[in-house]
């Protein structure tokens, strides 16, 4: 939901006037595509996207299809005139408006709409020329991201003067919210462990950089998670040992959904087996989740979650 806000009148008027001018400027042609529509590019794109439709790549198949020959996937519309890595973008009427928004503090950007219209299939040999016109300017609006302006433009691609594809694109340029907390003070981490007299020794160890395992003072049995009694000898007399801090991943999951408070997805949680003979659960961090596997050697690392809480986590270790 968006609502209109008051901003300094002058900034608002200045931006509105600039937008008005740029919209009145109409369509501005850009640099022609460096290459005509071509099969190698189609092949790379369809391979990357996993689109196996042979009408895009197989001459014989395409010849027998309704198209009578190879056509480019419509969704490649934008591909043909992209400037490429390090290439120079040709100027458009939108540039000045975006620059003015940056200048007035609306530095955040998020794309909100992209609608493409395909007037006809593109065929190898078509040489495209883009043209951009600005079509909309709305704001200031209050959004979840912050106060901002919606800017809309339309790109039309021409082949020999014929409009073949078009695209309406909209972005929200917003003023990033100021951080409410003072620098250096973290938000409280929401996933807190309950601690009582039976488990306090573990968390005290974590604060000191020690991974503690409960040990029965009478029979020596190690136990994790800990508890008040030794189930082997009934002793309530307990102490602890400090684990070596290494382990191997026994099982693990990659959490994608739903969102978890205080966490960014995806994240890895593992059951880690310790050489001492117990297992413990924790996150595997400092590596890509694709790299985690059963049997992976890890070592403990301590991560501060907020002012009060440190959690033991696991990072890759050379075996």
């Amino acid at each position, binding site marked *: 939901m968006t609502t209109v806000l008051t901003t300094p009148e002058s900034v608002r008027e200045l931006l509105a006037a600039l937008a008005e001018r740029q919209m009145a400027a109409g369509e501005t042609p850009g640099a022609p595509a460096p290459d005509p529509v071509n099969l190698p590019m189609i092949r790379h794109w369809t391979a990357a996207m996993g689109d196996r439709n042979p009408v895009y790549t197989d001459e014989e198949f395409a010849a027998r299809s309704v198209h009578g020959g190879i056509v480019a996937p419509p969704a490649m519309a934008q591909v043909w005139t992209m400037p490429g890595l390090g290439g120079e973008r040709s100027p458009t009427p939108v540039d000045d408006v975006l620059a003015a928004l940056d200048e007035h503090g609306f530095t955040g950007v998020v794309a909100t709409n992209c609608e493409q219209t395909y007037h006809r299939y593109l065929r190898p040999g078509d040489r495209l020329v883009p043209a951009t016109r600005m079509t909309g300017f709305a704001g200031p609006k209050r959004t979840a991201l912050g106060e901002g302006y919606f800017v809309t433009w339309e790109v039309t691609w021409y082949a020999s003067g014929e409009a073949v594809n078009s695209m309406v694109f909209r972005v929200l340029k917003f003023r990033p919210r100021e951080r409410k907390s003072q620098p250096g003070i973290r938000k409280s981490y929401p996933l*807190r462990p*309950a601690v009582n007299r039976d488990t306090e020794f573990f968390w005290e160890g974590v604060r000191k950089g020690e991974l503690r395992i409960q040990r029965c003072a009478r029979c020596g049995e190690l136990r994790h998670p800990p508890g008040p009694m030794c189930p082997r000898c009934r002793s309530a007399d307990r102490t602890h040992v400090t684990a070596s801090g290494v382990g191997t991943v026994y099982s693990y999951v990659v959490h*994608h959904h739903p969102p978890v*408070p205080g966490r960014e997805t995806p*994240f890895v949680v593992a059951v880690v087996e310790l050489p001492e003979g117990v297992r413990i659960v924790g*996150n595997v961090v400092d590596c890509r989740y694709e790299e985690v596997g059963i049997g992976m050697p890890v070592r403990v690392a301590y991560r501060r979650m907020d002012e009060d809480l440190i959690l033991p986590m696991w990072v890759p270790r050379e075996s």
Partner: protein
Amino acid sequence: MTIASAIAGIGATEFSKRSGRSELQLAAEAVFRALDDAGLPPSEVDGLVTYSQDANQEIAVARETGIGELSFFSRIPYGGGAACATVQQAAMAIATRQASTVVCYRAFNERSGRRFGQPDATIGGEPSSQGLEMSWHVPYGLMTPAAWVAMFARRYMHTYGAGSEDFGRVAVAMRKHAATNPAAWFYKRPITLEEHQASRWIVEPLHLLDCCQESDGAVALVITSLDRARDLRHSPALIAAATQGAGAGQMMMTSYYRDDMTGLPEMSVVGRKLWEMSGMSPSDIQTAILYDHFTPFVLPQLEELGFCPRGEAKDFIADGGIELDGPLPVNPHGGQLGEAYIHGMNGIAEAVRQIRGTAVNQIKNARNVLVTAGTGVPTSALILTTP
């Protein structure tokens, strides 16, 4: 049991995503339908049993339905593990003359109200035994049922060479069964293995289609003595065995510290007891209702109960073993993956229909039906039989 008991009535609301009514109303509607199905008036009921997690107190359900006085009421903990134990408690109450007619119920708006799959940051917050147990997991973001189950599933895959497709075949079979069940949410909506594989990750190795749906609805069951049940409207479903089970070193849903993590020791406990109590063996069972909140646990259930050797459930399933024409049709109604997620109670109602011979996907000569409850948690199970 000194007095044999039977399920004499079943009732349910529609299964939906938004019931539009309170959970108490759902409970009352299901209870009325179960009593009507049995042909008994509410005044005959003197016992009520539900799950600890159910939001409707026994006395509230009794008030809404005009049940009147109660001489027995009881609740079973551990989430969906309670399902068959409600029937076990009812049977025990009847056997020991604590009650003569007991209604078991489960009612919730699990989709439009509180959703069990959503993280609850407070579950590890209290230093109760459960809060402390959760505290070894929740701070690391391991806090949804899908994630707890996925941890077991990954180890199972590693140990037995199972793949995501092996879990997917369970989902495909359940949706196939549901497709011909008009009461199922996924009626006429089967899926393919390709769709299962393409569905998004929830918690790897679980895809969306490995997770059962979320439902609003209620199911109620009427249990009374076999002698009494014989005089009622339908042929009784005799309770041949009913039992609860927790394994050694059991936790609520994170028993990662006790063994090789590839089995369900609590299901072995109930399985052994079921065979002992009923005098039956796996080959005596014509169809099974196996708890399917997540696909991976259907595999170790088949193994723990003795329907196939350990580690071979994937082959049993790939050969069509759990389909309607297979050696052990599982969840002919479509299970929780296909029909509805009513915490296992809808599966018990299906078992009764199979015994009566009135199920939409009726298994021929279904004389003995085995039902399990929540998996990965302390659980329960039962066998219904034709008297």
